[in-house]
């Protein structure tokens, strides 16, 4: 019986104007997305590869252990995701590199050690082109698909009630939940058809290009993204059914739905995020700068005179200098780490509050599975930090392995003088793992499913109690 009702719904929808419009809209958007991706992705990849090669070449040209230890690994780059078209994730605002380099120092013979500098992305300050939202899958699914879902369901119950056909249908011995489920399935199938078509067209265009290669993992990620999109769409279908069963007139039902949509989808995420992030005050760049100066002065005060006094005793001075240099590098790195952590915490706060809105949840999910956005950025930073540890361990290990070395890391004379094989130096590789992403996304998936269940059962409850 459910299937009968669903079939009737589907036929009704297939002939309607909204079906045609939705198909055109989705196809157009998805094609535009694919074309833009094909144009931009090769450039992005090329840039990344060039930068990495340059960085690795510089690293490979060093054979002296002191140079390796002092200069550091250089720039470390974030690998662009091949699924960038799924979710842009605000990537232009996230830095795609961490600088693991040293900076010039102002003491006569000592040189600063390398540390991680987290530079913010400075993409927009010279861009005078108008601001727009990037049309990725996230936009198509989050905004357009949800709007279409509403436009398909707003009259599914109230419209029938207006025409009197609902009474007719219920006069047969059909349980109400069957009607509801049938309607739900009908709408689901009739939107899934154009959506799937659009997705397939998009993927067809994207995968035909030789520049963009999608591996098996990418395809499984795309599959997950597709199911998330369906789940999200179901959520809005349930919302549509809920309002449609509650409200007498279909026009009123659409008005309510649209205003809900505008509030929750278009405004809620950014407004709430802005309000929430106002409660957290990370240090400003000026403060950070000041504290770094402070640190500099403190350390200099502590060591300057002692170094001067030890001028006559080379061994003592070497030990002191090594201590100074390493202490300086660690303290600075800790400070910039703290700075970054505070900034991340602020964003995290804003993001967790916005989870009230399903569109934010779906954006985050898409970002995670597309390997872009904020979560990915944090993962990149973690990768960099892990690598930094590896690199430092490598230096200490190499130094320890040399019996002639004085084992004073931080000064040239105190370290092993044996040439190092550049091949042996650890190389940075930015990695992504699907299982880790899955864990990160579990909570969001759960929330989305919960939203759906609540709304659908709400629709059921309302529909059962409603007068026809």
């Amino acid at each position, binding site marked *: 019986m459910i299937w009968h009702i669903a079939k009737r719904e589907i036929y009704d929808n297939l002939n309607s*104007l*909204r079906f045609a419009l939705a198909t055109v*809209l989705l196809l*157009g*958007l998805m094609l*535009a997305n694919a074309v*833009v991706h094909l144009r931009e992705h090769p450039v992005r990849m090329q840039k990344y590869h060039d930068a990495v090669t340059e960085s690795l070449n510089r690293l490979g040209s060093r054979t002296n252990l002191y140079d390796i230890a002092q200069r550091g690994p250089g720039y470390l780059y974030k690998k662009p995701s091949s699924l960038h078209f799924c979710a842009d994730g*605000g990537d232009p*605002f*996230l830095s795609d590199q961490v600088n693991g380099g040293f900076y*010039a120092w*102002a*003491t*006569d013979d000592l040189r600063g050690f390398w540390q991680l500098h987290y530079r*913010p*992305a400075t993409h*927009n*300050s*010279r861009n*005078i*082109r*108008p*601001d*727009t*939202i*990037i*049309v990725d899958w996230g*936009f198509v699914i989050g*905004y*357009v698909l949800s*709007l279409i879902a509403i*436009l398909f369901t707003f*009259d599914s119950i109230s419209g029938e009630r207006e025409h009197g056909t609902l009474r007719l249908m219920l006069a047969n011995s059909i349980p109400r939940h069957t009607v509801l489920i049938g309607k739900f399935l009908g709408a689901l199938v009739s939107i899934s058809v154009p959506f799937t078509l659009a997705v397939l067209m998009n993927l067809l265009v994207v995968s035909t290009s030789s520049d963009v290669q999608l591996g098996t993992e990418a395809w499984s990620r795309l599959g997950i993204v597709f199911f998330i999109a369906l789940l999200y769409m179901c959520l809005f279908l349930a919302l549509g059914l809920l309002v449609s069963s509650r409200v007498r007139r279909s*026009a*009123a039902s*659409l*008005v*309510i739905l*649209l*205003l809900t949509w*505008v*509030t929750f989808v278009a*405004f809620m*995420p*950014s*407004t709430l995020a*802005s*309000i929430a*992030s*106002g409660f957290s005050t*990370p240090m*400003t*760049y*000026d403060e950070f700068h000041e504290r770094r100066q402070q640190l500099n002065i403190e350390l200099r005060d502590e060591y300057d005179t002692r170094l001067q006094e030890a001028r006559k005793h080379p061994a003592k001075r070497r030990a002191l200098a090594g201590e100074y240099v390493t202490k300086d590098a660690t303290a600075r790195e800790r400070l910039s780490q703290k700075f970054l952590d505070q*900034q*991340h915490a*602020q*964003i995290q706060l*804003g993001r967790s509050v916005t989870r009230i809105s399903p569109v934010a949840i779906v954006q985050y999910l898409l970002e995670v599975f597309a390997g872009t956005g*904020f979560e990915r950025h944090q993962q990149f930073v973690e990768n960099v930090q892990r690598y930094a540890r590896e690199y430092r361990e490598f230096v200490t290990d190499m130094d320890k392995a040399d019996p002639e070395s004085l084992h004073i890391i931080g000064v040239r004379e105190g370290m092993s003088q044996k040439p190092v094989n550049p091949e042996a130096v650890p190389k940075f590789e930015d990695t992504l793992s699907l299982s880790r992403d899955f864990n990160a996304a579990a909570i969001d998936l759960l929330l989305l499913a919960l939203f759906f269940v609540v709304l659908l059962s709400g629709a059921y409850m309302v529909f059962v109690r409603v007068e026809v």
Partner: protein
Amino acid sequence: MITTLIRRELLDNLMTFRFAAAVFIMLLLVVANSAVLIKDYERRLAAYNTALKTERQQLQERKTYSSGALDVARPPNPLSIFNVGLDKRLGNEIWISYAFVPTLWDARMRGTTNPLLNLFSSIDIVFIFEVVLSLIALIFAYDAIAGERERGTLRLVLTHPVRRGHILLAKYISAMTCLLVPLLMSLLLAAILLTISTAISLSIGDLLRIGGIILSSIVYLSLFYFIGMLISAVTRRTGTALMLAMFVWGFWVLVYPNVILAAIAPPQTSQERMVSTYDEIKQIWDEFDRERKHFLANDAAPGEDPHFGMVGEGPHFGITGGSGFNYAYFYKRPSTLEYFYLAGSNIRKLTEASKPQVPHAQNYYRYLGPKTINTAERAWLVRKQALETIFVQPAIVDRILLRCSPVGMYDAATQAWAGTDLHGLRDFFQAARRYRRTLIDYYYDKNVFASQQWFSADKGAVDWDSLPQFSFHRSDVKINAARALPDLLLLLMMNLFLFIVIFLAFQRSEV
């Protein structure tokens, strides 16, 4: 008769649920976002004030003219609360030097808190209007004619001796009156919030600009009402009308502005142009460098070193510390076509050994200063044109494309009123360039280049307070109005056009 019609429509509209919902949503969104926006503005204002203070301090630390690090800061625009435009995005501090002509591409961003906050898109009041007002207008309009036709009341009304045009007019006037309620109420609340904030003081000009923004909003609103009415006039059933209206809305508001810019590829030719212009500018400076070296070689104290081996007294730590520093280098940044030569010294007290070099240095700098300025002007002529074609023109093309949608027109008009559009921002950099000119004139007047204070402070430090001060005032309201006028007129014309079309469609339609 028409008053009766208007009264009927007005009562009809005011009693509806959608009216209440519209008022509620607008108030909620505008108040919540205004609070956020005002807070953000206050923060930026505080950052601006700190910037002014630190700039002064930095300047006072420099003792010679050539080392003066003269920065000027751009104040945040209070009307960015209405339409932020480029106000928050472009750099807000610029370095004024005799050696190069400043542009907006050379500005720095100062006083930003957390750059990652850009991940959350900022919502200004005009954006809320763009999305919600248009939606509400369509919701009010979709059944204006189709609904009456469906219920049969249209036929009833037309049995009376009323003109069809009057019916349309009555519907329009009453619906607009209703729609103005949420618009004006939310603006009123925003205004109250603005006056509560102590940091914001609005001048008469600002109030007029806000008036301009309100006017544009009303015209925008009416345009969407007409679009809805047209749909309503040509469709038989309200359901279809509403559906169509929503798709039209989705297309114009949601899809078109975002897709059009992505779909149209940015011009690729600019890269070659960049390289060739950069080379051209480099050549101008190379020529300058040759002449400079030539001068040094023929000097009474020949040598390559532009500082004539002058050093300050006191201990040295590399380049800082002690009693001074020298520098002479080419500043290069190909991405913004910046290339210039800068030489300076900040020596508090010269060593005895350096004293005999002073006349040579004076002679050299007397030659170098004006020469640098002339070369900078020459390079600027080249750079200006290239920047226009490479950066400004694509941005203008983008804006023209955006104007194909009413949303784009409205956005452009309100930005022009608020002064946060490209023109408004460029006004500031224009002022910075003018300031640089007055500064140079002042230098010439005082014969600064030839003085010893140019490179060393032996004869006393520079009195920075006697320098001409920088001041920037936003453009006059008239200019704002002139900039907003084309878009406003375009919106009005579309209004008129749609009204005529609706009138014709309605005249000919069967009831």
